[in-house]
């Protein structure tokens, strides 16, 4: 079994299976065979992530995580799944039943659709769209609509407030998210995810051409990850769903399986944006060193995804939650200017001749404004008398 065969084992299996399907059913069978593994693998990853997160957070907080169900607690997601399936599904009497039902469905649908353009291995992408990255962001914007539907249909003040805050947060962070992905598109000259990964999978000496190893790529990567954390309402940006602030925010009136679907949607969104970050900045399925290319490509992709999950858990266990105005200030006053400067930076990089000078110029172009902008954020706010505009 050569390394090539192991790497392409899923592609070859699918080709073999397709050989047995009659010609009339080829398109639908091809679609089903591509989609079903994604539908199986990522929810399984979600289940593992929930238990890893609880155990990881526990260890960081000097305690064990769950350790009763199964060996070292790793069957805990089964217990959670059974619990959420057997709970009574309560719909508040004044709630809008149709929208209340459709909101988690739309959320999970949008989250799953985003995986269609992520290349999980060499030749392993569900569909190679010409404008793959644009598709990803378009689908991501549907998630905000689902959040709003969830909060509004519950007809409860807490859930409405949570939904408004969540939508405001997601909209404000969508701009830095897209702008920090644009630098990669500018450098690569294409919107297709497969082409971007292929462009990064070449090696000079033993280092790869990943975009994260350039000044603008590194800055774009950090900004993308901060925006991705905020987009999926994940600590430290989880004010809309923080349990001690607003109880559960926009999904406060959901119980049982729909609650689990919201969780699933949020984590799937987290994996999808991490997957996009891996694709755009970290070279997708390519290995970091040229002497390690014998390890299959999908192993590299999932290894990087697990590293991202570990980083998310680490960040969750470390930082306190940001207040709403601090969150918005960060998005509009720091990240937006930085992403715009990053776009200029990649232009300078592209136009300057190769050499050490362009590294120095581009790095300085980013570090200096970052320092100056962060000083504006650190300035003490002048406290004013609180006025209530709509209350008089």
């Amino acid at each position, binding site marked *: 079994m050569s390394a090539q065969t192991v790497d392409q084992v899923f592609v070859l299996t699918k080709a073999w299976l397709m050989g047995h399907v009659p010609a009339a059913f080829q398109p639908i069978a091809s679609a089903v065979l591509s989609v079903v593994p994604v539908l199986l693998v990522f929810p399984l990853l979600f289940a593992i992530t929930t238990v890893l997160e609880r155990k990881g957070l526990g260890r960081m907080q000097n305690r064990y995580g769950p350790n009763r169900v199964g060996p070292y607690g790793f069957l805990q997601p089964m217990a959670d799944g059974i619990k959420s399936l057997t709970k009574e599904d309560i719909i508040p009497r004044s709630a809008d039943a*149709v*929208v209340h039902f459709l909101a988690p469905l739309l959320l999970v649908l949008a989250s799953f659709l985003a995986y269609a353009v992520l290349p999980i291995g060499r030749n392993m992408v569900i569909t190679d769209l*010409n404008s793959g990255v644009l598709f990803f962001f*378009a689908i991501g914007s*549907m998630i*905000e*609509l689902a959040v709003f*539907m969830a909060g509004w249909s519950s007809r409860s003040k807490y859930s409405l407030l949570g939904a408004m805050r969540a939508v405001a947060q997601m909209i404000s962070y969508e701009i830095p998210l897209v702008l920090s992905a644009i630098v990669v598109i500018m450098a690569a000259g294409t919107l297709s995810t497969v082409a971007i990964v292929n462009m990064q999978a070449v090696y000079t000496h033993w280092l790869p051409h990943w975009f994260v190893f350039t000044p603008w790529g590194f800055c774009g990567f950090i900004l993308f990850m901060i925006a991705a954390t905020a987009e999926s309402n994940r600590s430290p940006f989880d004010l809309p769903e923080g349990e001690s602030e607003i109880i559960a925010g926009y999904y406060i009136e959901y119980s049982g399986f729909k609650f689990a679907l919201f969780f699933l949607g949020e984590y799937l969104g987290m994996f999808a944006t991490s997957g996009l970050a891996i694709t755009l900045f970290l070279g997708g399925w390519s290995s970091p060193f040229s002497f390690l290319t014998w390890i299959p490509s999908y192993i590299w992709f999932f290894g990087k995804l697990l590293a991202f999950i570990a980083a998310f858990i680490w960040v969750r266990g470390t930082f306190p939650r940001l207040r709403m105005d601090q969150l918005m200030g960060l998005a509009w006053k720091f990240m937006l200017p930085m992403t715009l400067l990053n776009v200029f930076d990649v232009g300078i990089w592209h136009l300057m001749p190769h050499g050490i000078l362009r590294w120095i110029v581009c790095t300085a172009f980013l570090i200096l404004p970052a320092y100056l902008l962060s000083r504006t954020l650190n300035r003490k706010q002048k406290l004013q008398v609180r006025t209530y505009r709509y209350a008089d």
Partner: protein
Amino acid sequence: MGLRNLIHCVLALTLGFVGLAMLYLELGAQFVGFTQILVYVGAVAILSVFAIMMTRSAGPNAEPALSASWISGLVVAGATFAVLAWAIISSNITTAASDQPEVSVKAIGNALMHNYAVPLEIMGLLLTAALIGAVIVAMPQEKAQ
């Protein structure tokens, strides 16, 4: 629209936007289709629901969903449809869609920067004006003593 609840109306409008995007995709215009979803569903629909939520009346409308003169509305809509359909059917459109070159994003970008640079800048000015106007409308006014 025949729905009682305003928010249901907006969601149905969103469904209409998505349908339009599907039409674009069917015709092979990937960039426009996905931008339609990104802009209309992701921004305009959310703007509409926020606007309705901020300014809505106390509860669901007490009036019936269909106004009294719905028959004349139906007649006008039918007449418009008939005129448009006659215009399209009787015109001379050749079905040469297959040999159209696929418009890539690069071509759109080039066109925007070279041929349509002035409209692009004017749109930018328009959006800036809209942004400033929104900030002014939302800013707290100084209380005149």
